[in-house]
Structure formats: structure tokens, C-alpha cells
């Protein structure tokens, strides 16, 4: 009995939640990596990975083993501490937002009443990782990648915040659980279509996905900010990127697509997670399709698009929402 009272149950619960989330991150990265390569293959009329396992289904696991086994190369004359810290910095902040996302009515690690701000905050820390990695590599390609990442994230964070704020104004809360609960009858994508479009476009840019993948544009910058990283250093950036995509898709699901709501299921308060994941992976599928269908934009087009179109549109949208809510 003594041991039970010493370790508080809430702490044990959080530790278990974090362990589940971290294992989910790796699983998600493996699935997304496989899906990405398969979809890329089919878009380009080739089969994609086929050799390892049936239809190449074990390909990513083999790749993972290879990446773990690889030597961590540290280039000559770099800032060693910063070079090593950057992948960790990119990986850690993406764990935390998953703690507050309501996967179903009763599957949520922690319901913060500032959940949305929490997610946005962690997203802003992620840019730091790209910066530190790009600058620490002592390589001009990495440096340019990092600079582009910053300019891009500064530009696109504003429309993201403004589009999220429109939804927050409608339900008067930052708690993700309450926002989902407010969509019982009608999803916000129907009430806020403009905000949804702005969020998805800016979310693509925020996760450095094509057509906004300027920070790692292969044809110009080798691999951008992670040019110098090998083995697990690269993998952590890679997992961070896929998790970021998952978070953007989850936030879109929670705020616009009604979260766990869907046709009735038995044990709905737990099995709502099925609908949640269906919506999230549908969005992720869309993001992958966009990557393999559209060409990359130019950097000036990217910034012009954010400052001249997305920001004014989201401001007007917010204003109209505020007036309508007040009426």
C-alpha cells in the first residue's frame, strides 16, 4: 500500500501516456513513410517499393534498422553541441501537443483549458530546431534552408493563428475537447470554410511540405537544413516532420472536421477514435497527394502569398466572424 501512496496515480498515468505517444510517433512515421513512397510510386505510374515483404510492406522497418546502424557523422569545424542538440530539439516539442489532442471523448491524456495555445506554442519551438541544425552544420545549403524555414514560418504562423482564432471566437474556449463537443450538430468546416482552407494551406507551409518545401528543396539546396545529418540525426528530423504533419491534420480534424463525431458506434466514447483517425489520415493522404502532384513554388511567390493573400483574407474572415458572433 505504501508504494501506491508514494507514486501519485496522475504521474503514472502521464508517464504511460507519454510512452504510448512516443511509440505511436515511430509507428506513424513508419506508416507515413511507406504510404508516401507507395503513393509517390502510383502517382508516377510505377509500383514503388516491392522487394521487402509483400508489396514492400517491411521496407520502412529495414530502412529504420539501416538508419539506426549508421554512423553519426559530424562534419569538420561545426559547433558540436548545437549540431547534436538540433535533432532532439526537433523531436521533443512534437511529443507534447499529442498529450492534449482528444482522440475520442475519453481518450485524451490531459484536457488543458488552453490546449490550442499549447499546440501553437510547441509548433513555434520547432522552428528553433531547424535554425539550430541549419546554422550548426556550417554548410551554406543548411544555412539557406534554415533562413528560408524562419522566413516561411514567421509568414505562415500569422494566418494559422488568425484562422484558428475564428473558430475559438465561435465556441468561446481554447479547450480542444469543448471545441469538438460544440460540433455535435454541425462541423465547423461548414460554418468556417474560409478559415479551414487558410488553415490547410498554411499548415502545409508550416510543416515544410511541398509545394512549400523550400527549406529542404532538393533541386536547389541538396537537402536544406538537414544536409549534413546522417543516421538517427536525420531520422529524428524525419520523424519530427511526419509527426508535425499528423499534428496539423489532427488540429484540422478537431477544429473543423468534428473530431470524434461520426455515425454511431458501440462504445462511442472510446471508439470515436476510429472516426478521428479516419479523418486525420484522409487529410494526410491529401497532403501526400498534393506533394506528388504540384510543383514547388518560388520563394518570393511563397512569401507574397502569405502576406498579400492569406493574412488579409484571414483578418477579414476573423472580423466577419466576430461581427456575426456578436449579433
Amino acid at each position, binding site marked *: 500500500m505504501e508504494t501506491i501512496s*508514494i*507514486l*501519485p496515480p496522475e*504521474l503514472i498515468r502521464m508517464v504511460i501516456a507519454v510512452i504510448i505517444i512516443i511509440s505511436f510517433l515511430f509507428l506513424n512515421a513508419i506508416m507515413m513513410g511507406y504510404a508516401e513512397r507507395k503513393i509517390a510510386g502510383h502517382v508516377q505510374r510505377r509500383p514503388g517499393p516491392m522487394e521487402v515483404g509483400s508489396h514492400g510492406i517491411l521496407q520502412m522497418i529495414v530502412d529504420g534498422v539501416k538508419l539506426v546502424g549508421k554512423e553519426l557523422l559530424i562534419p569538420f569545424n561545426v*559547433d558540436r553541441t*548545437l549540431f547534436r542538440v538540433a535533432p532532439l530539439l526537433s523531436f521533443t516539442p512534437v511529443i507534447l501537443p499529442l498529450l492534449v489532442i482528444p482522440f475520442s471523448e475519453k481518450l485524451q491524456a490531459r484536457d*488543458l*483549458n*488552453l490546449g490550442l*495555445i*499549447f499546440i*501553437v*506554442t510547441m509548433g*513555434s*519551438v520547432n*522552428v*528553433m530546431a531547424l*535554425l*539550430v541544425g541549419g*546554422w550548426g552544420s*556550417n554548410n551554406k545549403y543548411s*544555412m539557406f534552408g*534554415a*533562413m528560408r524555414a*524562419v*522566413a516561411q*514560418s*514567421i509568414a505562415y504562423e500569422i494566418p494559422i493563428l488568425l484562422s484558428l482564432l475564428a473558430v475559438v471566437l465561435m465556441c468561446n474556449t*481554447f479547450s480542444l475537447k469543448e471545441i469538438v463537443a460544440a460540433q455535435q450538430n454541425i462541423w465547423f468546416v461548414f460554418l468556417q470554410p474560409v478559415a479551414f482552407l487558410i488553415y490547410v494551406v498554411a499548415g502545409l507551409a508550416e510543416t515544410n511540405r511541398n509545394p512549400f518545401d523550400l527549406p529542404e528543396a532538393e533541386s536547389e539546396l541538396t537537402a536544406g537544413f538537414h544536409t549534413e545529418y546522417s543516421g538517427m540525426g536525420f531520422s529524428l528530423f524525419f520523424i519530427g516532420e511526419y509527426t508535425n504533419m499528423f499534428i496539423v491534420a489532427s488540429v484540422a480534424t478537431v477544429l473543423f472536421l468534428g473530431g470524434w463525431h461520426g455515425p454511431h458506434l458501440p462504445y462511442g466514447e472510446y471508439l470515436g477514435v476510429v472516426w478521428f483517425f479516419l479523418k486525420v489520415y484522409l487529410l494526410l493522404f491529401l497532403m501526400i497527394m498534393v506533394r506528388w502532384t504540384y510543383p514547388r513554388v518560388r520563394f518570393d511567390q511563397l512569401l507574397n502569398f502569405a502576406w498579400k493573400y492569406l493574412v488579409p483574407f484571414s483578418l477579414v474572415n476573423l472580423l466577419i466572424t466576430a461581427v456575426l458572433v456578436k449579433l
Partner: protein
Amino acid sequence: MTFYQIIAEGLFFAFVILVILGSLITIRAKILMQTVLGLAVAFLGVAGIYFYLGSMFLTLMQILVYVGAICIVLIFGIMVGYTPTEVAEKAIKDWRNKFLAVLSAVTAFLLILACVLKTDWIPAVADDRNFSAAHLGQEFLYTYCLAFELISVILLIAIIGAIILARGGAGGMITDPPAGKEVAAVQEEKGEAST
């Protein structure tokens, strides 16, 4: 002492150490980039102390604004303006600047000291004031409306200052010697070619 209290105390000292370490890195680092990263560490520590004092909203705002925005803009400035191996200035030779620096530092210290001495501190546990986002918003827009608006005037001044600096200053404060040299070099080459 319960388990939670031990964790809380440990976290408090961890955050304080983080602030002190970050500040030390900020003033001791030889490379400008490390200076800003030290500043980011110190800001994170301050955010942690807000968390310890029970205001989630202030914690998140501290990270969002100071680490996520201010530090990143500073780093961006450094990346645009300096090479990666740039070393921070070691000694300020100008006596006038030195005097002004010491003066402002001492004044700021005295002001903070006066505040610390004047306040009668209550333990964080006994402090049951409301720090929620809703309450803070109300206070800012009703009780402390004037101060809030004055801060935005300061921001306006900063923006105007930035624009003036970017456009070359009131009296042409920023001249651009490298560009001038390049132009001169090009002109020399042209001159040679023509003669």
C-alpha cells in the same frame, strides 16, 4: 513532504538553474548565435517559473512570444548580417558607450531592487489570485487599459525606428561600405577596360 511537493521543489530549482545558466551563456558566449540561444534557454527557464507559480497562460505566452518569436527574429537578423564564425565584440573601447551601458544597467538594477524591497511577498501556495486567460484579458482591457495602450505605443515607436533604420536612417546613418567598394571596383575595372 509529499511526492508532489518534492517534484515541485525540484522543478523550481531546475528552472532557476536554467535561468542562471542561460543568462551566463548569454553574457559569456563568444559567438553571437550562442548568445541568442543562451537567451532562449533563460526565457524557457522564466516560463518554467511562471508554470511553477501556477499560470499556464503566462507560461505559454512566454514561450510563444519570447522563444518562438523574439529569439527567432534575433537569430534571423544574425544569420542575415553575420558569418557563422563571427565573434561577439570583446571590449567596448568607446568611453561614452561604456558609461551609458553602466548607467542603464545600474538604473535598471536599482529599479528592480526597489520593486523587490517594496513588495510584501506571499508564498506561492497561499497566493490564490486568478491568473487565468479570461481574468488577465479583463484586467488588461479594463483595469490596466492605459498601461496596455502605452505598451502598444512603444511597439509603434519600435516599428517606426526599424523602418527608419532599414531605409538608411534620418541622416543616412547606415552607409553600406561593401556595396560601395564593389561599385568602386566595378568602376575601376570598367575604367581599365576603356583605357
